[in-house]
């Protein structure tokens, strides 16, 4: 085989897909004439094919879980951020609850505010509603959290 060293080098170049066109031609001609080198080349290609045939092994099913369990812990804020991102519905529901609670409280608070039914002729001084003298108010006058002073008249509808 020693006399064919150059040819073997070309075989490797060929298998590396890195052969010069003129060397490829030399190799082709030589393989055509020399049975010994033909066998050699065949053996080499066979070895490569056999090695290639062993590929495609799969990692165990729990591989990723095991890796994740070994990672150092992440920061809390990122965890929370991701939770919001990955649970948009829960986030929306939480927002809804917060806003609803807020509005319940604000309506509740409104009960303590001074209010009076809207009628013309009513005079409001501070938290006192005055029905002025000589005026007639039509309909009920409703006053919440305040006083009423009736100098005129209130007529039921």
């Amino acid at each position, binding site marked *: 085989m020693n006399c064919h060293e150059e040819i073997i080098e070309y075989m490797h170049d060929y298998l590396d897909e890195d052969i010069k066109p003129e060397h490829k031609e030399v190799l082709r001609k030589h393989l055509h004439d020399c049975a010994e080198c033909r066998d050699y080349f065949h*053996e080499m290609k066979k070895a490569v094919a*056999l090695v290639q045939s062993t590929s495609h*092994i799969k990692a165990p099913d729990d591989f990723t879980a095991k890796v994740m369990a070994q990672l150092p812990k992440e920061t809390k804020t990122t965890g929370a951020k991701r939770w919001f991102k990955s649970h948009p519905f829960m986030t929306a529901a939480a927002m809804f609850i917060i806003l609803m609670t807020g509005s319940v409280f604000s309506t509740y608070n409104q009960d303590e505010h001074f209010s009076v039914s809207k009628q013309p002729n009513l005079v409001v001084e501070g938290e006192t509603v005055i029905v002025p003298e000589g005026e007639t108010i039509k309909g009920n006058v409703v006053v919440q959290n305040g006083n009423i002073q009736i100098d005129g008249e209130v007529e039921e509808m």
Partner: protein
Amino acid sequence: MDALIKERINQVLKGDHNAFGEIVEIYKDKVFQICFRMLGNRQEAEDLAQEAFVRAYVNIRSFNITMKFSTWLYRIATNLCIDRLRKKKPDYYLDAEVAGTEGLNMYSQIASDMAKPEEEVESLELQETIQVEIMKLPEKYRSVIVLKYIEELSLKEISEILDLPVGTVKTRIHRGREALRKQLRHL
């Protein structure tokens, strides 16, 4: 693919654990395969492949985002394997070569498209034999052969993974191929 990986890496950089899980899913088979072919032992391959991912996670800040992520990851994995092989006692190899049961476990996981059981067994034995022959290669030839023929990487990528000049990678592939030719010619 690369764009997806880059996005995941950016998420990991922001501290997002789960994005790393997706990266592991994408590369676990490749990394496990490199380790198994290098070490010839399933349990050890699994341990080292996991270790490779943990190291990648811990050192993710040192990853250059313009680089190919797989190259960086495979480099971590091959370095771990090479270190392990160098620390091992030589008589260990004999154990690894004889342990056919390991292989059975292993190859039962390969998605089989073969119908006949006898063919399957035959192929199993052949696979084991080939693995034994790969294990006989000296470590420096084994690593290039595994990366070239099992992971199907280019010479340039292999040279980046192993941090060797392309010329050296080439020479080692030639030597490895010669050795395999002699070992496998009678199969």
